[in-house]
């Protein structure tokens, strides 16, 4: 495969400082971290977070980075999950000034760099949009001429993470297209449609590339979403190795890495 090893240094645990906490949607918050030993990352990567209780009990989870590699702070975007041991803690307790132990960056496959060119297709379900946002932001900073299309499926309009920013990009970036679809409500917005991602939507999005198909497609979301979307993409003739996927790492009822993790399971 084309992406290959960077010489990986050992990943050490370190204390990152929470500088800002922002509510993105009713169930999603962004945590902006200052990480002391940080030597950059590739758009699409994630980090591991480790929490320690007073009796030394620890819980670890993986979270995707939503910020661009060029940004000063590392933005972790965390969806609150029912019964989530770690996501619940982030939503209820964590505030600016706190220290959070983390290490990273992690993952060398679900990544895109400006040097790889395009066009690129990004397909996200729910909070699966987070690593795709890192890719989009990096593209904007480093290679805005690369055509990029985002297909983003989400339950309700209020669940659209990065909503203002995405609509702004649609308006101002001639090389960026967006197909945003709501699965649980009827869209009340000219740039939003309703229903699940299906063959017609994918065909339309691909037609938008004007005969120059994406060199790479990134699909991220729940397992069911990724499975359906990648099957549709294969049916539309995209090549197997051009499709990279990332699936939520756990039972949604518990506390999946939301989204983020990588290796085989």
């Amino acid at each position, binding site marked *: *495969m084309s*992406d*290959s*090893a960077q010489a*990986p*240094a*050992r*990943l050490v645990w370190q204390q990152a400082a929470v500088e800002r906490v922002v509510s993105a949607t009713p169930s999603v918050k962004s945590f902006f971290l200052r990480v002391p030993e940080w030597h950059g990352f590739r758009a699409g990567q994630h980090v591991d977070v*480790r*929490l*320690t*209780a*007073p009796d*030394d*009990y*620890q*819980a*670890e*989870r*993986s979270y995707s980075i939503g910020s661009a590699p060029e940004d000063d702070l590392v933005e972790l975007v965390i969806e609150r999950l029912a019964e989530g*041991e770690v996501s619940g*803690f982030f939503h209820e*307790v*964590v505030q600016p000034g*706190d*220290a*959070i*132990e983390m290490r990273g960056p*992690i*993952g*060398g*496959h*679900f990544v895109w760099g400006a040097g790889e060119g395009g066009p690129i297709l990004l397909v996200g379900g729910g909070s699966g949009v987070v690593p795709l946002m890192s890719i989009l932001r990096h593209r904007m900073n480093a290679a805005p001429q690369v055509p990029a299309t985002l297909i983003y499926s989400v339950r309700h309009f209020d669940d659209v993470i990065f909503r203002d920013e995405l609509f702004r990009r649609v308006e101002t970036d001639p090389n960026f297209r967006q197909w945003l679809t709501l699965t649980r409500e009827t869209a009340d917005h000219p740039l939003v449609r309703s229903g699940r991602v299906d063959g017609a939507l994918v065909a339309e999005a691909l037609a938008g590339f004007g005969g120059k198909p994406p060199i790479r497609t990134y*699909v991220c979301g729940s*397992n069911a979403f990724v*499975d359906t979307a*990648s*099957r549709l*993409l*294969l049916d539309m003739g995209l090549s*197997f*190795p051009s*499709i990279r*996927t990332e*699936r*939520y*790492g*756990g*039972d949604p*009822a*518990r*506390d*999946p*890495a939301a989204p*983020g*993790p*990588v*290796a*085989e*399971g």
Partner: protein
Amino acid sequence: MLPTRGFLGRRVSSEDAARLPPGQYKESGFPVLSAGPTPRIDLADWKFTLKIGPRPVKSWTWSQFNALPLTKMHRDIHCVTKWSKFDTNWAGVTVDAILADAGLSAPPTPFLLAHSFDGYSTNVPLKDLTGEQAMVATTYEDCPITGDHGGPARLFVPHLYFWKSAKWVNGLQFTERDEPGFWELRGYHIYGDPWKEQRFTGD
């Protein structure tokens, strides 16, 4: 380690805690993770090949492979993305049985790479694959393994992180050296012992 302000966490029973490697949590579902789409594999095209370096030693079709002796394993599994699942039941052909059927009484090298239909690979030392520790599994909980979980056949090496249990496996290859596979080239640990928390390079 300093405690994280305000974090108490949930506790599992001491019995469960003893079965959880460091940093893992108990999962009741069976999450799916893979680097790409699920490949479409027709059993008529399925072939498993044992190689020494570039040289094929023996290949099996699906029916030939399923004629080999079947072994059952009941194990806990541990994914590097932090979930562990207890008491999973698998059946398949042990690597010992595969080597024996190929007539390899003396293994040519101490290292293997597992290869998959989608181009994935992962390295596992011979000592971790033999002695009834590992197999090429064809059933999970008494049913054929579904495509998203690596069917028709996946490697099963439950004492290592689960990325070592390559999905859609189609071959084992003896290598001169311990050659890193797909994730091992992308920052993941060369060996992957969950009890030593060997998640990433250098852990």
